[in-house]
């Protein structure tokens, strides 16, 4: 009885002293802008979404789009009014046939339900993957697959298994542009799920382009590392496709790409004033190559232009 009385008293004190602080904020709804303008093509589709309440289902979040927005794109000194062509999708008029070129500047303005969002950017030079080289060890290596240290409980044992750590080196044509940033991505498309402790892997990179270029060599180079788990120490390398992606963009995109995959849904930095999202100029090249047991034990060029 005394204990209950004390608990009640304590809870009352908590409510009086600090109860008013427990009010959690609510969302009033925001606009999300997604626009990627690339050289050598017409101004791209602009996608406008809205935020959804935390408790909303995934499907309803996909359906949260911004309709009836006014979208204007100024390319250098020319204004271009976009038209709504689908749910949250906005495109240039069909008859507009101008092709974006390196160095073009653009400024995007979106008006939607009282929200005014603006963003600007520059069209970078095109980028092209020249070569991909993979290096596969002779046999799989032992690896920690689940680390009990990084889980929420120590009640779960760590497990070990075997992986093929595969290096992939890519080259692309580059003059080492000072203001350019490069994003690289190795995406193995395999049937298995990778649960490997991955802090030593390097499937992605975001860096200044000038840091990837040797003096006097007109190309950039980057080496990444991904893993393919296998059953045991005698397993052969499963045949799998490796998708390699390369993006050239400015600093705003680099900040966006660097913080996009932290695993906890932390929102990436936005260059859109008045809204969320990203609206930048960039150039992309990507390739999918096949890696199989014939590549084991040597440095194999699996693609060369």
């Amino acid at each position: 009885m005394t204990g209950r009385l004390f608990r009640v008293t304590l809870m009352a004190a908590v409510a009086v002293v600090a109860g008013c602080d427990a009010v959690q904020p609510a969302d009033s709804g925001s606009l999300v802008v997604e626009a990627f303008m690339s050289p050598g093509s017409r101004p791209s589709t602009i996608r406008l979404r809205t935020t959804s309440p935390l408790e909303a289902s995934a499907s309803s979040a996909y359906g949260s789009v911004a309709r009836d927005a006014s979208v204007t794109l100024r390319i250098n000194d020319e204004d271009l009014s976009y038209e709504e062509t689908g749910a949250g999708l906005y495109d240039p008029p069909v008859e507009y046939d101008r092709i974006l070129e390196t160095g073009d500047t653009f400024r995007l303005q979106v008006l939607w339900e009282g929200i005014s969002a603006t963003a600007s950017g520059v069209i970078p030079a095109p980028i092209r993957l020249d070569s991909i080289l993979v290096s596969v060890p002779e046999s799989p290596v032992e690896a920690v697959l689940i680390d009990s240290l990084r889980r929420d409980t120590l009640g779960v044992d760590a497990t070990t298994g075997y992986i093929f750590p595969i290096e992939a080196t890519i080259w692309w044509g580059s003059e080492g542009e000072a203001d350019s940033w490069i994003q690289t991505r190795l995406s193995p498309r395999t049937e298995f799920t990778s649960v490997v402790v991955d802090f030593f892997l390097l499937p992605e990179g975001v860096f200044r382009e000038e840091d990837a270029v040797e003096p006097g060599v007109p190309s950039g180079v980057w080496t990444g590392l991904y893993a393919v788990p296998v059953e045991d120490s005698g397993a052969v390398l499963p045949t799998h496709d490796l998708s390699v992606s390369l993006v050239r963009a400015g600093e705003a995109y680099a900040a966006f790409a660097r913080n996009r995959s932290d695993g906890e849904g932390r929102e990436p930095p936005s260059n859109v004033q008045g809204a969320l999202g990203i609206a930048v100029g960039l150039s992309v090249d990507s390739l999918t190559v096949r890696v199989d047991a014939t590549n084991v034990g040597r440095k194999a060029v699996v693609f060369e232009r």
Partner: protein
Amino acid sequence: MSTHVNAWVWVALILVVCISRPASGQTIRLDGAEISVANALGRVSAQAGVDVVFSHDLVQDRSTRCRYDGGDVRAALGCVLQGWPLSFEQVAPRQFVLTSVERATFHELSGWVVDIDGGEGLLGSHVYLPELKVGTVTEADGAFRLAGLGPGRHRVRLSYIGYETVDTLVQVPAHPIRIELSPLHIGTRTVVVVGELGDRAEVAAIPGVVALPVSELLEIPTSLDDQDLFQALEWLPGIERTGETAGGLVVRGSGPDQNLYLLEGAPVYHPSHAFSLISTFQTETLQDVRFYRGSFPAELGGMLSSALEAELKDGRRTRPSATIAANALSARFLVETPINGSSSFMLSARRSYFDKLIGRTHPVEEDGRRDTLRTGYYFYDWSAKVSFRPASHSRLSLSYYRGRDDLDLRLPFDISLDFSSWLRPADLFFEVGHRWGNEVFSARYHYVPSDRLLLTFTAYESDYRGTESTFIRPTSSSVVASDYEVSLRDLGMKVDANFLPSDAVSVKTGVSVVDHRFGSSLEARLSRSAGLVEGVDDGSDVDALEVVAFVQTLWKPAARLRLQPGIRLTSFEGGGGLSVDPRLSVSYAIKPWIIAKMAAGTQVQHLHRLRDRYSFLYDLVSSRWVPVDDRVGPSRSAQAGFGIEARLARSLKIQADAYYRTSDDVLVPRDELQAKEGLEGPGIGVSALLGEYVRATTRSYGFEVTTEWQLDSWQAMLSYTGGVSESKSTEVGEFNFRPGRYDVPRSARAVLSWSGAHWSYTASAVVRSGYPETVPTSVYILGSPIDEPQFFLHRPLTNNGRLPAYARLDLFAGYRFGWLGADWSLKLHLYNVTNRDNILGRRYTLSEGSVRVVERGGLPLLPLLELEMKL
């Protein structure tokens, strides 16, 4: 409306009447006949029913022809004293003291009453002059002052609960005196009056200062270590910890990197052990502690928020003593002893023993393979001080402190709760070797060349060093190895002069020169695979010279008024130019039992504490301090405080403080949510680290109310803090203030103790607002040129939410007994006795568009035992 106005007018009138109305009794009549002043004063006293205290020396051979008929005591006394160089002062509602207006006969007696053993000031001691029937009660640090005393020898009686009551003679005028009392159980009647010019009185003029005697700090309940000063301080208003029981001190909402910690005049830059679970300051080893929560006097500076000054005990001067104790975390001893009549010695050590219980190394064998796993962690402290008094006018003390933490692990990744599953040879493992600690050496020489001048020379070296070694083998073809080291060494010299040109004025001035040396290095090798090897080899060594000069004056223009203006000049090599920081504090005794205090000033901080917020390889437990330079300027703050301190009764004291502080160019994380999550960060270069921070303006304001009550065996302290701590940085688009990281709008604490001959009990409770958190308010989808669209959580503002309120109740029981000729204490501390599940942190994660909240709870109910033996 008019009703309210009238009500306020009446309240104001009543207050004015109550406050200003002089004591009065029945009608006072003096018929104009010539009588002695002494006789006339006696008639006024008798007719008005008030005490008029005076020295017969003052009125001897003086007469009056006063004619008065009325009820105003002040008017009657003025009439009696008319024509004579005499005045009077009301020191209590019905008590007046006669004073001389002649400069030569107007004196104040001031000083401190302290414990003879430890030197701690005794709060609430009674200082009474029986012949004059006047007296006072000492303040928090044992300081007292009595104004309006005539010249000559005065008998002074001093009494304090648990101590011998003593009488002594003091010659007035006198410089501030130090009176040492003996506890009753010692059985001696030793009274030592030591003439000293001190600066304790200056502390009393500043609001927000905690100057509790060490004996009282030891009585404040602490959670995990009975001797932890930080854990004792966090029960005081306006002070929090960054964590539940661990972490640095958060003072009035400011971060731990804005606090100045001084031990024997030397800075301590990393004052914690056991991953900030406990502090390096052991209360038991300290003789004096002053903690400035707000404005500092001009002699202190270098940090924006608060300052902690602590002096080690210099050893008993009566007889040797020894203390040995062990608690859940550590074992310790303390020895104090006189060496001879003029010197003494203190030695203290503490060490954790967890590693002794579980072992530091574990040889393991399986299938003929051998390995040695390591699970070593310990910390230790050494404190030592030697004091010499070669002559009555000089004193030399040499102090040494060394504290270290040592973490040495070699473990497989599989650290489950089943020991047998991982105590075996491991191919895949990690090694962690972290060592960090402080070493302080300080030499101080006090010299009194004349009755009105005290010189103090201080030389010190303070060295902080941290090393972090990591070796990780997550696969048989990859290795991650790194060695990180950070250091800060201060070599300083200070000369302070305390000059008393008159009884009403003291001037303190000083110059200090400090050579700061900052070092850092990182050597790392990341072998991700056979052909993908990266390396980092970086380092820096920076020297910076800091020169400081200050002057501060304690001026008492009237008996009730103290002014303490000061100015501090700082020149820091590398950036910031010359900083000029004015300080002012004022205290005014509205009544002898009510003192109003005000302080204002500016501060500058030339050191910034930065850490790599990306890499989990290094910069984990160390404190990395970097000096200002052309890339980053100093942080500056201005603060003001106002306080009222009232002793409503002998056993009841109330203190209220209000404060406001604003700081500019404070470095705060660019992204508060950034967690260490990768092998590589931007590195240890200051430029790279600065990219992770932005300059911000912060402000905090609030009020604190503390009630202390003490009666016989009972003692209680109740405090409430209401405050706001905010921050904004235009560099990240914050144009309005938002809650700071350690914003706690409301906080209440209560401590109730009872102490008997053998048993003592304490119940302590804290209830406070939760810390701010950044809460997602919505979810959205965003694509990229090379990825499928992803879900993201939208957090519109930093610290837009708040964790649930924190509440905890602790109970303490202690039993003292004698055994084998020693005094023993057995202490049981029950932490979080209600086993409340406090929420200390939340993580919001996304899985397929659904939000998952992971909460981090606080400590459950913990029983903690301590056994102590005193010889």
